[in-house]
């Protein structure tokens, strides 16, 4: 009886979800039309409404485009970087970041990722976290099947190799899955927002000024202390800065 009562409720929920999704798609198409007509401010308004409902790199990318066309280059860069976080190594995003970086001379100081980071970024761009989760489940299933066969059919060489391979696969995928989930929870990337921002030797106005940084500079947060964060832009540039001068990406 309980199951029979739950069916209409679930169906109603599914219908609502489909209707909400269709509304977002329509809004997205309408915003794209506005952009094509050169009504960037109106398109931006719609995109921002969509981004509150759906997290998709396309929406963030298009918001960045609107800001760029409206000459809000700082905001444009923030949204392009947010889009890149969801879709690393995308050529369009990289190109638009490069275009907007021309407005910020300091942005050019960002170091290129090394080989390992590039490889990880490539993996990240090709393998979404959900796909990784599915792969992990499949690897676990393979491991269980091979173990079951090993237990029931005795010591078969092929089954033994399959079990060993599936154990290694599960370990590798599990470790990568954990690291991806861990990285998702930590948002270390940020960008300098205000003019004449100062990097100090410690958290507080009394500390020595080490560097003056310009808006648009991408930084990594490495430590927190009250309203201050310790940031680094490269191996040579690091210091403490107030949180309010940053925009988290």
């Amino acid at each position, binding site marked *: 009886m309980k199951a029979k009562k739950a069916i209409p409720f679930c169906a109603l929920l599914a219908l609502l979800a489909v209707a909400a999704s269709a509304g977002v798609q329509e809004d997205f198409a309408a915003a*794209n039309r506005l952009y094509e007509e050169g009504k960037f401010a109106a398109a931006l308004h719609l995109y921002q409404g969509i981004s509150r409902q759906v997290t998709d790199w396309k929406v963030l990318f298009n918001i960045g485009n609107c800001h760029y066309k409206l000459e809000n280059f700082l905001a444009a860069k923030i949204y392009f970087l947010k889009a890149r976080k969801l879709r690393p190594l995308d050529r369009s995003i990289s190109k638009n970041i490069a*275009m907007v970086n021309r407005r910020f001379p300091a942005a050019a100081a960002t170091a290129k990722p090394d080989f390992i980071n590039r490889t990880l970024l490539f993996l990240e761009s090709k393998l979404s976290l959900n796909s990784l*989760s599915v792969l992990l489940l499949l690897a676990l299933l393979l491991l269980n099947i091979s173990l079951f066969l090993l237990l029931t059919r005795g010591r078969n060489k092929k089954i033994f190799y399959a079990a060993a391979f599936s154990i290694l696969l599960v370990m590798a995928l599990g470790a990568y899955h954990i690291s991806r989930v861990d990285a998702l929870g930590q948002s270390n990337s940020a960008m300098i927002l205000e003019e004449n921002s100062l990097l100090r030797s410690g958290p507080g106005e009394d500390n020595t000024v080490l560097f003056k940084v310009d808006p648009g500079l991408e930084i990594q947060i490495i430590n927190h202390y009250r309203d201050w964060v310790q940031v680094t832009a490269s191996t040579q540039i690091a210091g403490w800065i107030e949180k309010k001068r940053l925009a988290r990406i």
Partner: protein
Amino acid sequence: MKKTGNALLLPFLAMLLAVPPGLAAAEAEVSASISAEKIGLDDTLIYTLTFRNIENPSQPDLSHLDDFKTLQTSRSSEFQFNNGESATSTRFIYYLMPVRTGKLTLPQVAYRHQGRDFQTQPFTVEVVKGSLSPGQSPPVRQPSFFDDDFFTSPMQKQQPQKMDAYLRAVLSKKSCLKGEQLLFRVLLYTRNRIEAVNMISSASFAGFWQEWFPVPQSIPPGSENVNGVIYQVYEIRKAALFAGESGTLAIPPLQFELEMADPQSMFFGSRPIRRSTQEVKITVSEPPAAAVGLPVGQFDFSLHSPLTQADINDIVTLQMKISGSGNCKAIIPPALPGGERFLVYSPKITQESGYDPAALTGTLRAEIPVSFSKAGPLTFPALEFRYFDPASGRIVSLRSRPIQILVSGKKISADHSLTLPRSAIVQKGEDIDFIQSGRLHDQSWRLYRQKWFTALILAFFAFNLLALLKTVLWDRHVAASPLLRNRQLLARTLKRLTQVRHGEDIAPLLETYFQEKSGLGLAEISNQKIAETFRQRQVPAASAEKFLFIKSQSELARFSEHKKSALELKKDLETLRGLLKEIDRKMK
């Protein structure tokens, strides 16, 4: 200085001879006159306004005239005393330059004096091209109105001309062939300093194709003795001319405006003057019939390939170069015929001009992209370029060297390969990439956050753990221990006893139990052996006898017609279970 002194002296003397009171004044009058009714565009018209018996008249402003440009003005005054009557006269002289040809009108001038209006008559002046003044040969110096100084009275004797400049047009040849290069130069002869030169006439000559040389920032002067007078000679313009038709062609006079330094100006001023070159004629003849249509001049021709080896998929760009002096812009580069083994694309042709002092030179470059269809050694045929050399009067034929390229399947590096000319692509602007469209997916939804995902992972891990425990611990250590094995054997035997339905089934069960318990073979088992083993293991004799009795009864039951009832069988099995437990304890 002398002229200036005179100019100042005259009004001063006039003041000394001031009109005594009581002298009668003559009738006031304003009149106008012009120096000529027909002038050239290069000439200057003198317009004189005379005010008689009007004291200190103000100078009328003629700057509003559209057809004339006021170059200079001067003023003079006179005082006469005749028969007791005094008469004053003031003249304003305007030096006017016409700005166009045709019949131009000088309008009337109105003047108001002591409530009375005066008006001069209008004049019509016919202006024609050029100059109506005699020729400009330097020894015969023409009087120029520019030589007059401001405030100089026209009553004074004309001073000698100070501006000495004339132009000559010079051609490098008096006769030429059609298409042959001629050098046309405009030379300025002067003894004054030049401030600026501006060509007013159109720089195009009918019957010629011409290319003007760029005007240098500074022109170094030469010197030349003309009729005993040393002139500085400037080459102010130069052009390469190529006659496009035969016959006698004329190069019309070119008019220039020269900004010459004024030697008499106190402030280093300059004056504009206009000068023209003379008309130059040249006889142009047709080249030989065989040379019609060929480029005329002296040229070099080459064709080469930057590569000697190429991949079959590559595009090699052959470089053709034709350079020399002559009508380079009329050159049509010889076409490379296509073959079975290669395909020729349309070439990219660029032309550059060089301005040597003696001639206009040019370089034509053709980049011919070629692709291959078959591998193996390939020879491009030699190309022929023909031109007519006017110096020797012969047709010259130049042939390029045959080009050999080894086409293979081996890929050469991209750095050395040549593709279609990139200059065809010109970047005009840059912008961000366009917006993205398509279906949206909520990228914040995570599979790993679902409860069933966690449960599934845990179930898999639990199964793995149990399997591991069973394999590593249970099977190897627990299940293999003698204690557990004995217990398992007893439990298994007791379980089987519960399934017995006939008396004859008991004996095999007991034999199997004894076999596994004692480790003996099946053939070795007998009642005697069982009794002996029980004795060795100190199994009570009563229990051993009972065990053997039940076993024997079971064996006999196969052959007996009398079958035990279910109740009797059940009783025997219960007894046997108790016996087995007792025996098992003794036989651990």
